[in-house]
């Protein structure tokens, strides 16, 4: 299972890598457009006081991955227990089941997206979040997932999704586009896509973390089992030795008793 998880990790990482160009270009374009239409009143860019928050919690569907799910759930839990009212939108079974048992309202859930999640699989969760925000039911949408840094470093991460945090402009990439139609309208179409791409990237990132965590968990299990086998083998040999010694001494004792008699 360790080997299986390790090979799946490689495949999932490749998939996360494939999603990068879109996300990068999208971020660049968004930065440019947003800088052009400053003072835009698009609701996705408008901060408002947070009375109620929606948390999109990304966890794995399965366990056997060490502390992966528990750690992400714990991060989400700190939000749930904070002052502002929090509702959840879960991607992945583990998070859903936990908060469901806890009685925290879950307004949408997506699970069983497998090893090859497509954008359309996770869109429902994003659409619900977007609608809730636009309807004014929640004032912020945040995303919790486990970020893959390296196999040994899996970090539960919180990022604010809506209002959209426009990435900082990098030096020297200023481009004055001709917009068709108006910049505001282009921006209005870009923003939802940007949010979707971020959630999709998070789901892939989380999947990579899951297989990394599983690889480690399985390696630990193999190591522990090996240790246990060594211990038990030692015990078996000791017991056998003791039995033989005892039987021998009984035979010798018996023979001596006979000889003496």
């Amino acid at each position, binding site marked *: 299972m360790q080997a299986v998880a390790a090979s799946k990790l490689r495949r999932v990482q490749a*998939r996360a890598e*494939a*999603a990068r*160009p*879109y*996300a990068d*270009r*999208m971020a660049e*374009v968004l930065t*440019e*457009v947003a800088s052009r239409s400053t003072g835009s009143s698009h609701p996705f860019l408008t901060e408002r006081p947070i009375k109620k928050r929606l948390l999109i919690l990304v966890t794995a569907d399965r366990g056997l991955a*060490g*502390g992966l799910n*528990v750690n992400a*759930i714990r991060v989400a839990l700190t939000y749930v227990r904070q002052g502002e009212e929090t509702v959840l939108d*879960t991607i992945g079974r583990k998070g*859903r089941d*936990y908060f*469901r*048992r*806890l*009685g925290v*309202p*879950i*307004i*949408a*859930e*997506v699970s069983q997206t497998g090893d090859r999640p*497509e*954008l*359309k699989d996770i*869109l*429902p*969760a994003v*659409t*619900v979040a977007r*609608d809730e925000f636009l309807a004014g039911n929640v004032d912020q949408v945040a995303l919790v997932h486990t970020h893959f840094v390296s196999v040994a470093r899996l970090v539960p991460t919180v990022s604010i999704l809506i209002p959209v945090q426009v990435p900082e402009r990098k030096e020297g990439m200023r*481009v*004055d*586009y*001709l*917009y*068709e*139609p108006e910049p505001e309208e*282009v921006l209005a*179409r*870009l923003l939802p*896509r940007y949010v*979707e*791409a971020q959630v*999709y990237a998070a789901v892939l990132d989380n999947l990579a973390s899951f297989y990394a965590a599983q690889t480690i968990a399985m390696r*630990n299990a193999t190591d522990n089992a090996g240790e246990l086998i060594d211990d038990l083998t030692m015990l078996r040999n000791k017991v056998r030795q003791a039995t033989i010694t005892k039987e021998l001494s009984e035979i010798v004792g018996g023979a001596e008793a006979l000889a003496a008699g």
Partner: protein
Amino acid sequence: MADKLHVDIVTVEGRRYKGDADFVVAPGSEGELGVLPRHIPLLTPLAPGSVKVRNDGEEQFFFVSGGFLEVRPDQVTVLADSAERADDIDEARAEEARRRAESLLQQKLSDADQAAATTALARAEARLRLAELRRRRRV
């Protein structure tokens, strides 16, 4: 060497095309548009249709269901929506996700279930601490 456009067609799920071209035609939301090298920078949403890429007389077509076209003088980027998406399907799916969550909540939860959840977490945490401790001791 003649001017070329660097064409990059990407979707959320991956890159579909990367290469040079002499001429690109894309279905802009305001009408079909053709792009030659040294076009002025342009950004426009795309309507569903096909993107044509011509290079050395060879033509390739890519279907897009929407997305964006970003043009720079030497570069064309198509941020394409994946072909399956359609807004009405998305709405129906969203509704389903919402309903699923509700039906989950409606299934009555006893105190015992809640307690089980809390203990499960506590147990998992304890196990983690133990694993951590063991690992540190072994090193």
